[in-house]
């Protein structure tokens, strides 16, 4: 039977990504797959809730679904900061394997218990790579010394900049292009799709494939909304999320490969540095820092072993 608008279950979804983003298409596929029982309303571009405020909106029942950054989780659950650290996940596959593992289930259970939010899965959106407007060849963290690297605002991001051996500079995302052009900053770190969207490649000379952070958010649904569903509906929602996420991840990987060749055509130099040297340096800095004091014991090792 087809439910009328009144009987349908409302699912308001808010995210920062734009309506043209691959992930908006992912949500469209999700909405189609969950079918007639639901009234899905997607708000993109941060128009309904500002970036970083969606989690509280979920918790307070002002939103049913969101695409939440792991950093926002760690703001309320310090143990989660382990999942925001650099050189933790090797790639999108490793990320997915983790969230399906026991260790991953422990972490998502924490969110359910403490925040009342259910995680449907990790939405991969690209690995962060360092892009520079310098000629200098980078192979180890030592080569990054003194490089003014723009990082997003906030302690954790600035620390990540230092963990790469650079001199982190907080700067609004919208100002980065001019910053690179004028030399106010020497570089930025973003996934390749962002580099293309914002045309950063026009004002950069090289991309160091550090893959220092596997970028992902978490497709979530408030526990209140989840618990109102019948087991069949829950199964349908989870299955729809799984296949939409899988599609989106594959799209992003394909896009990253295309963009790597595109950037080369644009005359940029792309190369892999000594990633092991970067990983060793970064993990060491993290574990020695205050940031690691809340991390669950042995979590890094368990993730490394996966």
């Amino acid at each position, binding site marked *: 039977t087809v439910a009328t608008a009144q009987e349908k279950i409302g699912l308001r979804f808010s995210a920062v990504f734009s309506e043209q983003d691959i992930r908006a298409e992912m949500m469209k596929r999700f909405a189609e797959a969950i079918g007639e029982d639901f009234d899905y309303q997607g708000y993109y571009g941060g128009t309904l809730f500002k970036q970083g405020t969606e989690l*509280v909106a979920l918790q307070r029942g002002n939103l049913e679904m969101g695409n939440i950054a792991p950093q926002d989780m760690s*703001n*309320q659950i310090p143990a989660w900061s382990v999942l925001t650290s650099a050189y933790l996940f090797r790639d999108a596959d490793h990320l997915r394997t983790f969230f399906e593992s026991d260790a991953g289930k422990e972490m998502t259970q924490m969110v359910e218990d403490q925040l009342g939010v259910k995680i449907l899965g990790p939405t991969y959106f690209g690995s962060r790579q360092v892009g520079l407007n310098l000629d200098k060849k980078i192979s180890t963290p030592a080569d990054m010394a003194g490089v003014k690297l723009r990082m997003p*605002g906030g302690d954790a991001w*600035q620390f990540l900049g230092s963990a790469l051996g650079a001199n982190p*500079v*907080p700067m609004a995302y919208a100002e980065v292009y001019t910053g690179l052009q004028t030399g106010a900053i020497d570089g930025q770190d973003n996934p390749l799709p962002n580099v293309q969207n914002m045309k950063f490649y026009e004002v950069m000379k090289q991309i160091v494939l550090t893959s220092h952070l596997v970028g992902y958010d978490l497709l979530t649904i408030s526990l209140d909304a989840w618990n109102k569903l019948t087991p069949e509906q829950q199964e349908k929602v989870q299955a729809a999320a799984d296949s939409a996420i899988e599609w989106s991840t594959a799209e992003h990987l394909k896009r990253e490969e295309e963009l790597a060749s595109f950037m080369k055509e644009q005359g940029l130099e792309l190369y892999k540095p000594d990633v092991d040297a970067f990983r060793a340096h970064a993990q060491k800095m993290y574990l020695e820092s205050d940031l690691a004091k809340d991390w669950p014991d042995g979590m890094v090792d368990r993730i490394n072993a996966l």
Partner: protein
Amino acid sequence: MPLARIGQFLYRRAENVLAILLVVMFLAFMAQIIFRYFLNFPIGWTSELTVITWLWLVLWGAAFVLREDEEIRFDLIYGAVGPGVRRAMTIVFSVVLLVIYLFSYPAVLDYVTFMKVQATAYMKIRFDLLFSIYLFFAAAVIVRYAWLLWGAIRSRNPRRRDPEHAGSSL
């Protein structure tokens, strides 16, 4: 009358706070620029401090410092009508505003206190404390409009605005 003197004294202090908030915002900007470009050492807390002072400046100013004739309003009608009609208009909008702000106060309080679960990125100020200014603001607006209502009922004529005080920044 001592009560009026106390009121005057408190009003001056509220003005002091407002001016200080702007000075702090300005100095934080200076610190940010100096640290980034001259000492090549970026500090994140300055940009956090500037947005905090901006938020507080607006709500503090609107709650405790702005006079009625400084607020931006549509006064094509309000400015043209006679004192009697203006009184009636004041009574109507004050009642509506009071009902809505009083009725929604518990929900607003609930939101602000909920925000204790998060803290700012650099200075780790709990958001319930940071956002508490809204509670003061809403309470001050309620008191102010109760006072305006009382005055209008007691046949005090609302003042006409000085057009040079056009509250606009355009």
